[in-house]
């Protein structure tokens, strides 16, 4: 099994210094859990964040330099030497950050894609078993045909950073000539420094709170039960249960 991890470079949102996004480190972890050869692939010039990412378990990162559109460049490289498995992060950090690249790549290669992958299981007859992480701890098993693209869940286990591995990692520059394609459909607009806006504050159950003062315990229990049920936190009563 040969896996390729797509690395975007990236910066740390707080300090602005080079750092790989959490999802890409998780992707390296998933690739390592499969075993076999694992390499990094980056469309663009070798940047320091790639070496940091490699410190989490990659010996070599190929940097495709000189091309135009990242999707076209990556698709061509993957088409020329198809791996069994391509892993990506959920979202880059430092560019467009839309999380579209893996999807556009899958569309172009006509490979299947699954996102939110927290674990990879066994392969059998060209199918790979994976576990998808959903909101609030829920999980969903899935199988996908190889070759495929998997986007790692940010919370998938991250392999530790080893400084010496980062130091010794090879960032190999591969010159490519850009092919123009549809690729990313860029959105025009005006760019400026980020301004944090407060989120809307959730008013619990729409409006001011209800206060029940000194009820007797049975009354309190009934009100609590009905409220939790109305919120959908409690299964509906069984047939024939007492008052509603």
């Amino acid at each position, binding site marked *: 099994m040969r896996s390729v991890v797509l690395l975007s470079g990236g910066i740390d949102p707080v300090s602005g210094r080079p750092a790989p996004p959490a999802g890409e480190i998780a992707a390296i972890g998933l690739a390592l859990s499969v075993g076999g050869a694992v390499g990094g692939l980056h469309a663009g010039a070798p940047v320091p964040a790639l070496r940091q990412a490699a410190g989490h378990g990659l010996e070599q990162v190929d940097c495709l330099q000189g091309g135009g559109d990242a999707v076209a460049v990556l698709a061509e490289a993957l088409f020329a030497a198809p791996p069994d498995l391509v892993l990506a992060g959920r979202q880059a950090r430092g560019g*467009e950050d839309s999380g579209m690249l893996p999807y556009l790549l899958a569309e172009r290669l006509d490979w299947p894609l699954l996102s939110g992958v927290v674990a990879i299981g066994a392969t059998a007859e060209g199918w790979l078993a994976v576990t998808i992480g959903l*909101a609030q701890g829920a999980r969903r098993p899935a199988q996908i045909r190889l070759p495929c693209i998997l986007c790692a869940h940010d919370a998938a286990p991250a392999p530790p950073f080893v400084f010496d591995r980062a130091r010794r990692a090879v960032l190999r520059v591969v010159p490519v000539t850009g092919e123009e394609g549809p690729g990313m459909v860029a959105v025009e*607009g005006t760019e400026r420094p980020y301004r944090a806006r407060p989120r809307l504050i959730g008013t619990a159950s729409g409006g001011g709170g209800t206060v029940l003062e000194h009820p007797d315990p049975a009354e309190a229990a009934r009100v609590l039960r009905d409220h939790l049920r109305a919120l959908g936190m409690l299964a509906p009563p069984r047939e024939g249960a007492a008052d509603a």
Partner: protein
Amino acid sequence: MRARRDPRAERARCLVPGGARPRLARAGEAVVGAGPRERAVISIEAPAFWVAVVVEAPDGRLDRWARQSVGAARVLAGAEGGVVALLAGTAGGDALGEAGADRVVPLDGGIGPDAMPEMMLAALAPFVPRHVVLAETPAGGDWARRLAARAGWPIQTGVEMLSARQAIRPVGGMRRERAAAPARVLTLPRDRVASHGGTRREGRWCPAPERPADRGRMRVGPVVTATAAGIPLAEAPFVMAAGQGVVDFERFHALSRLLGATEGASRVVCDAGLMPRAAQVGASGTVLDARCYLAFGIAGAPQHLQGLGKVEHVVAVNTDLHAAIVARAGLSIIADAQAVMPALLDLLREEG
């Protein structure tokens, strides 16, 4: 708990001044059926354009995020556009109309992610929507990107501010932002756009699109929900927490098991070793992403409330009417936790 309605004033607002004729909007929409006991509903026949929204309702309820996505579609539709909701899950047209949808197209729930873009495109085809809004949930975010990639539509993900004319989203590692005209596809994080607060819309049911052929490239199994005790606190949908006001921990644990709630605690309780440190909710503990937080004997110190940032519904049981948590709670029971817990246990056990 909802603000009291004034049906007479609502009806009056729907009539042309001084007359008994319903107000007609520019797009030919009429406010109909506002009899004294009925609620006003806006129904719209042929709007100038459509805005679509994909709504997830896996358990038959529209949560706040889903309502906010419909609200965002309404913002983009303005006065002249109509909103069509593609419903993934089960929910009534009533609930969707209330949330602001003019039409509802049900999507086949059993369909896998691979066939989802085809299905959405089939559902959208009769409407040719100007925009498609999706919540940036695990599933919604995935569908949005599949749709944009398949159709070759421009997309803006994680839009933090939205008006009919522009959408603003962070770029460059959250250090910069870009303001641009709203794109064809938009995804919406939680709590960025208010849900629809205006008059109810019709939510008229439309036929479901044909189910596209499966490409046989992936098989997706059923969703396995985590057991309450097994969910990491930060991901838990329902958290029941103990503060200094709880002394009967045996009953507390029994109740959390029966309710299927994940356990949390205030710092003082963790400091005392009555609950594990991992259960601490707050600034120096875990920040919750729960839908419901049930607090027994918790005062609601600022450091504790910081952990409730994203919680939708807070329920408090406290002996002190003036505790800060009471101000944050949708329902507060002013009573002794040691008396309420056993009563609730008995009631739930009685139900079986």
